[in-house]
């Protein structure tokens, strides 16, 4: 298969970038999208041009490292799945494919297709945890958790932290990411003691990091490779309202 590629190239956060045209030929349909970029990079190297910077690690959809916008869609057309799980057989032979980084105000571009997602780490640092010192845990089966709650917590916990939700959101909001973590921890009894402070702190940092507001367009849910449900956003809103109320009641 042959493809015409338009790829975003940018030296660093300070310099402006632009789309550059490339051709790739004789690509097997069994090649993954990222392997197609590897092939292009080998060609560029052969010509003495600097390879295109893009990030990936596990290449099986779990680490959340890869982050490309393909033809305007975060992670490309094969939902649900991260862009490392996308294969060239999903494209038409001869197609033109535009490849850009995730475009989110809060994620500056490092180089070409690589972005800085450290704001997501800082949201978790604000309170996305349960304080449990090693050595002090009670016997595991002394905490009973209804299967339904455990399953639901697992659904929320499956988030891979890729940031596609924010990239797909017209407002650049990280609500789905934050909601997934708040929901995971507040669905479990172990998470109750820090339930209110957690949601208040995480939302405060999310806002401070420059993410936009959620206006319920649900574009996030459509691109999420971990199929995190937008209903967790409603849960976050309830948790937040509850925490505010209890705080103002002085509890």
């Amino acid at each position, binding site marked *: 298969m042959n493809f015409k590629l338009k790829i975003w190239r940018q030296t660093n956060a300070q310099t402006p970038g632009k789309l550059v045209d490339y051709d790739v030929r004789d690509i097997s349909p069994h090649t993954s999208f990222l392997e197609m970029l590897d092939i292009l990079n080998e060609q560029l190297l052969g010509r003495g041009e600097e390879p295109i910077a893009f990030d990936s690690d596990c*290449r099986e959809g779990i680490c*959340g490292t890869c982050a490309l916008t393909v033809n305007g869609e975060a992670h490309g057309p094969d939902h649900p799945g991260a862009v490392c799980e996308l294969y060239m057989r999903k494209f038409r032979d001869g197609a033109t494919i535009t490849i850009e980084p995730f475009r989110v105000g809060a994620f500056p571009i490092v180089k070409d297709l690589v972005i800085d997602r450290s704001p997501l780490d800082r949201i978790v640092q604000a309170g996305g945890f349960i304080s*449990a010192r090693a050595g002090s845990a009670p016997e595991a089966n002394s905490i009973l958790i209804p299967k339904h709650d455990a399953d639901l917590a697992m659904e929320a916990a499956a988030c891979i932290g890729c940031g596609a939700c924010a990239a797909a959101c017209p407002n650049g909001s990280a609500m789905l990411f934050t909601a997934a973590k708040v929901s995971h921890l507040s669905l479990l009894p172990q998470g109750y003691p820090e339930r209110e402070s957690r949601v208040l702190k995480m939302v405060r940092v999310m806002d401070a990091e420059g993410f936009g507001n959620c206006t319920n367009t649900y574009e996030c849910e459509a691109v999420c490779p971990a199929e995190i449900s937008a209903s967790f956003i409603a849960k976050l809103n309830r948790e937040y309202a509850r925490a505010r109320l209890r705080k103002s009641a002085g509890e």
Partner: protein
Amino acid sequence: MIGTLDPKIPPGPLAQKWRSHRDHSRLVSPNNRRKFDIIVVGSGLAGGSAAATLGELGYRVKCFCFQDSARRAHSIAAQGGINAAKNYQNDGDSVYRLFHDTIKGGDFRSREANVYRLAEISNNIIDQCVAQGVPFAREYGGLLANRSFGGAQVSRTFYARGQTGQQLLLGCYQALCRQIARDTVRMFPQTEMLDLVIVDGQAKGIITRSLCSGKIDRHAADAVVLATGGYGNVFYLSTNARGCNVTATYRAYKRGALFANPAFTQIHPTCIPVSGEHQSKLTLMSESLRNDGRVWVPKRKEDRDKPPGEIPEQERDYYLERKYPSYGNLAPRDISSRAAKEVCDEGRGVGPGGRGVYLDFADAIKRLGEDTIRERYGNLFEVYEKITGENAYKVPMRIYPAVHYTMGGLWVDYDLMSNVPGLFVIGEANFSDHGANRLGASALMQGLADGYFILPNTLPNYLASQMGKRPSPDFPEFENAENEVRARIERLLTVNGTRSLDSFHRELGVLLWDQCGMSRHEKGLRESLQKIPELREQFWRDVRVLGSDEDFNQSLERAGRVADFLEFAELMCMDALERDESAGAHFREEHQTADGEALRDDEHHAAVFAWEFQGNGQPPKLHREPLRFETVHLTQRSYK
């Protein structure tokens, strides 16, 4: 001259060693802890749990990883589960049984005392993870659920869907985030350790390079912990993440740390086969598929390109069922992997390149119905379809073995300290607990045991005598190490040859896979020991690395890793040659029983082989740590 190594195993009965060791270990008092700086390289299960726990205890910790977030360490990709001896199923499990299964699974090439401690701690790990909010699978009554795994007759594996590694790692990562917020841990993502600094014979710091800015930094500390994972990517293709590498442990080796059993590498039988020359990684398919799938290849090699449906029953060779009638398709990992290689070597392999065997569900679908199969393995069939474009309900899956885990690693004593005082090594990066073969669901257990429970208790044993001895990063040792790092980067950027990094890495991978993979023999290993230095020499003459060292440069980042693999591969082959026996995953063709099973040589080789660097171009020196079995009986494994 071959020396003998002392693992410093505490005296006393096996079951009391760990307790009595802790009773007699030295301590660092709470208000002295903040006077110690600890470097933890790695943020996977081992490094993440260690950094968080040490921070919680009050030490000042610096934690490093090469990914853009600590949460993306390769541990995230583990699927199946984590073992513990809880005996929640009331099926006869116990600490002793988990210990025994692990020693036997490792084909009697690990230390009794370490493995016993691991089994003991396994239960605390589950408690800890539940307390942190890890959403393990549960039964309707709200209790924890278990599944069974290979190499055991009890059901002791805890799991979170097919994402156990992810959930355990997020537990660690969140604990780490809490410490970062408390300022006890400073996190350095996208920062690669390129050298270890030794002052007066003790590990006292590292040299790093920022992968974003290219900035080289010196970090001094009171102790250094390496938790940098395994080196499976030396084979180029493996189930490991792309970034996994040997650099940190290999650099430490070059500074005097012993590298133990580098030839012990595990090859997993059920992975999706290579589809083309540009393939960048291999994907694991859960072993559980072998419960219902039947493995076969055509009897005649002329049939290998025929569609499988056109090959009649009598023309198929269900070779596992034929060779191992009692275990059949469930023969253990190493045996099944070797059998697949054998039929492909005979020219009967299927799929592109003839490197694949069928895993056929047709009989199971006929017997149980497609719905049942979908219920059991639906998500795996989906992954398979995503990658291959084939519907495994209609055509048999194709699978082939792939490199998966490395049992070898830096040598450590009972305290998890290497022979270099102050250098601790945890997780897959050390060699300690799995002998010549790791059982499923026990790597996650080991990483967390090391990080949450063992290291925090053994580190003070060293630190107690180190108060006020942290060197300044201005010491000449730091300057020298930094200069060496800079010179090497400079050299990589100035070769300016014609060949790409990947072409060298692929060539090395193919060579190792053929000669130091699923089976090895003297002649092949000797040949590789000739070829690897040639390839390395070519690399330094002809590699092309573009860009500068002063910004984000992924080629440069990889170049250093490939250069280290090119040296390390030689050590692997040397170890494989020296170990003149078959044990677990290390199968020397010269040493097999009449029916092709691995034949150990307990009299001469019941030992850990630990290699000491002697200078570039010099053969390394071998040290042997004899393994003493006081509790278990050494037996020959049989699966007929």
